């Protein structure tokens, strides 16, 4: 067990003007689960790109030794050939092809270019069994959920005779249940002798499965912790270089009267017209209050928020919304914005940002009238607004002319937040505001939320991370299957209580 399978020595990689990695060392033993943690932009992904040959040999300094041999990869093909397979955060599956077609894409069992589908499908079925996925190999990828797609990616890796499996944020978009299943699978692979590298922001997961943790900060290896020293606090201290005594900023809620209220909100599915997605939801938020909506993935929380925000989701929407006791017309996004409702999406890349444009233009997009008169934009005003929000939300960028596509996840999220803050909302709906961002940026986002609440805004936070909800909200609604199944003050809520509400809700439906 003690033999070293991979050793990366003194890896240094520079981009024009930036040293992304400097003298990074990583040593992975055969048969272990080795976690790599670090803030966004610390250099984890760069290191993995060096390892997998995305940055070919010669573009970096240092040595890679895999199973006793020095490797000089020219591309991904070389590294895959000797058994290093990386599964990226953004899945690389073709949605309109079947599971079999995806697993053997570019690697089909064929003779003279003619594919033997029976052989491929039989092998797929065997691989799916290995990863515990009970689906027909003919199923199209688009018809299965993200959790299952992740498993297909792993099956695809297995099909390549993988010796070292690298998972980059594998649970970032998975529900609690799917994440657990995935981690169990990793442990199962470990029992069978496979080595894996796990890159994750979720320290509880690292805590659960990792044999060793290597912490990377600012392109340098800080330390490698053995199993017995792994604890969340220890890792956080090492990651941020300072101790985060409290992961949530302190705040003293000043809660006023109810300002935002939703009554009997019902929504039907946009395609399957008979399916009711949101069922008679009632909810209210007070001035200066942070209200959480807890629930599992697929509980209907995002659908609820988007149907509220300019009817951006669903059909046959019924119910009433009021602000300060007056009924609100939210029939289009622009009306919602005019009525000072804002929705910060859970998927900032697809729904939040124009990635090919810079920070300045993204920040003002939801409130162009705030920087223009008679349709003519005042460049100076826009510039000072953008700089102002860059400072307020601490966006780390060389200038407001940096493209948002080149920012790290945390900074992108701050740009989306800035956009909605500049629209000056009274009610702010934040959907998974800290998904896929590092501990330091999370703290900054929490601080912004606390500040907004102190300014007297009404805030709704949708989150799948229960500790986060418990840490930053005043009151929590629990949603399941499109229904509110529980409501509790954050002070006497707990993860168990929330889970119990969800399970009870499911029980109710069954009876």
């Amino acid at each position, binding site marked *: 067990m003690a033999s070293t399978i991979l050793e990366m020595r003194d890896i240094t990689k520079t981009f024009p003007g930036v040293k992304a990695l400097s003298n990074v060392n990583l040593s992975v033993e055969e048969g272990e689960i080795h976690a790599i943690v670090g803030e966004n932009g610390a250099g984890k992904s760069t290191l993995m790109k060096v390892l997998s040959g995305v940055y070919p040999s010669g573009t970096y300094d240092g040595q890679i030794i895999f199973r006793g041999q020095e490797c000089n990869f020219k591309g991904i093909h070389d590294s895959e050939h000797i058994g290093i397979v990386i599964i990226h955060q953004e899945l690389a599956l073709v949605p309109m092809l079947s599971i079999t077609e995806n697993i053997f894409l570019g690697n089909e069992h064929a003779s003279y270019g003619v594919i033997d589908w029976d052989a491929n499908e039989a092998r797929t079925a065997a691989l799916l069994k290995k990863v515990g996925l009970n689906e027909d190999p003919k199923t199209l990828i688009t018809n299965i959920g993200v959790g299952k797609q992740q498993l297909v990616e792993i099956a695809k890796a297995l099909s390549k005779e993988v010796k070292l499996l690298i998972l980059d944020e594998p649970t970032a978009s998975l529900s609690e249940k799917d994440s657990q299943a995935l981690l169990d699978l990793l442990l199962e692979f470990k029992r069978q002798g496979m080595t894996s590298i796990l890159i994750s922001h979720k320290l509880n997961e690292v805590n659960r499965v990792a044999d060793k943790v290597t912490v990377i900060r600012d392109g340098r290896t800080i330390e490698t912790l053995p199993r017995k020293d792994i604890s969340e606090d220890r890792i956080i201290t090492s990651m941020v270089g300072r101790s985060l005594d409290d992961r949530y900023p302190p705040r003293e809620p000043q809660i006023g009267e109810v300002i935002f209220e939703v009554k009997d909100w019902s929504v039907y599915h946009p395609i399957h017209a008979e399916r009711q997605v949101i069922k008679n939801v009632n909810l209210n938020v007070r001035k200066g209050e942070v209200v959480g909506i807890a629930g599992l993935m697929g509980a209907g929380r995002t659908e609820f928020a988007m149907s509220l925000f300019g009817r951006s989701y669903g059909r046959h929407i019924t119910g009433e919304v009021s602000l300060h006791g007056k009924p609100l017309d939210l029939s289009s*996004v*622009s009306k919602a914005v005019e009525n000072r409702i804002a929705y910060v999406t859970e998927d900032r890349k697809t*729904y939040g940002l124009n*990635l090919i444009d810079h920070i300045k233009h993204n920040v003002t997009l939801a409130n162009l009238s705030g920087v223009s008169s008679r349709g003519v934009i005042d460049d100076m005003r826009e510039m000072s607004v953008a700089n*102002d929000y860059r400072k307020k939300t601490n966006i780390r960028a060389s200038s407001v002319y940096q493209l948002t596509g080149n920012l790290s996840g945390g900074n992108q999220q701050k740009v989306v937040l800035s956009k909605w803050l500049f629209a000056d909302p009274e009610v702010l709906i934040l959907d998974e505001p800290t998904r896929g961002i590092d501990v330091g940026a999370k703290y900054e986002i929490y601080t912004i939320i606390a500040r907004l609440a102190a300014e007297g805004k009404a805030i709704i936070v949708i989150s799948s991370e229960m500790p986060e909800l418990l840490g930053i909200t005043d009151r929590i609604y629990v949603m399941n299957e499109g229904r509110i199944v529980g409501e509790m003050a954050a002070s006497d809520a707990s993860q168990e209580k929330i889970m119990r509400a969800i399970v009870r809700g499911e029980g109710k439906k069954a009876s």
Partner: protein
Amino acid sequence: MSTESAPAPQSGTAEDVKQGPRIAVSALTTNLREYGLIIALIVIMLFFQYTTSGTLFKPVNLSNLVQQNSFIIVMALGMLLVIVAGYIDLSVGSVAGFIGALAAMMMVIWPLGIFSNPLVVSIVCLIVGALIGAAQGYWIAYHKIPSFIVTLAGMLIFRGICQALLGGGSSVGPLPDSFKALSSGFIPDVIGPLTLIPPTVNAAGKTIVGSGLTLHMTTIVLGLIAVLAYAYFGFRTRRKRERHGYEAEPFPLFVIKTLVGSALALFLVFQFASYRGLPVVLLVMGVLISLFVFVTKRMTIGRRIYAMGGNAKAAQLSGINTERLTLLVFINMGVLSALGGLIIAARLGQAVPAAGLGSELDVIAAVFIGGASAMGGVGQVIGAVVGGFIMGVMNNGMSIMGVNVDWQQVVKGLVLLGAVIFDVYNKNKA
């Protein structure tokens, strides 16, 4: 060097100190493509100036060049917005042909009385163009039919109507002179000509055409006003930025840019003035180009089009009515296609069934040479205009050189491919 006025956050202090020079560098690199394109145009012009032994820059040829290519550039302005918005329009050549036929029928064949007046006809034609744009845009915006398909259908439909209207293969003309002035006219010299060198008089007492130097003073005055305005507004914007504490670009770079731009403009103005003055169509084009630069750079509607092309879903969730915006982009395209059609008819002096045939491809090529992205969200008006001129100068130069039309197409194709490869390569390097 940093002139940031507001206090910087603690963590970003080190970054902000370096911000001044960094902005200067980024101003240069972000504009590199625009400068590069203009430099490419100048190099191409000098090349043809050399290979055509000086014919290219002759005043009469410059006038021809503008008159031959103006309709491409006018339509490229609309096409830029269409492509930036994330769509394509294949119907513009056919719409231009149809509008030309409609205009000719109204002015020459149909008994419309005072409604056959060229001005009335032109206005009616522009309105018809808007309706065509609206009809196509409606399906694209509100029913999400791919623009490629809708406008491919439009291309067939309007070419067919154009030919049917003209009754098969025949052409309709001649068109009234006052209408033809749109393309082949020159602005009147309200100030009066200035003779610098009197023309040579031959033995028979007649002046030799082309000898001497008489300047069209109205053109000179308009040119001077334009150049002064360009320098003044450039300087004012710069001052304003500095007053607000933002570094624009290094002062020497600004001076060089302004001087080179002004010198080029004055040279062209002088060439036009020594012939018959500014072509009317150049004036129309200049006004439209300024308008579209302003709309895309300074107006909220322009900003919204870029945002929609960059990420339509994000734009929609930011409160932008993407459907209406799409419709407007196609209405605009329809109006400019109609104007293009009028310009073609005015230049030919008649409506022919093949008018504008294939020009949609030249228009699209101009926009892509100008640096627009086929994915939407990226592209500049000036880029499209320069792209149009690059195509035009190549057409013109190669024709003078006597290059076969077939080979002209090959060269144009290579230039289009080269420009886009250059773009993609640059983007990957960045």
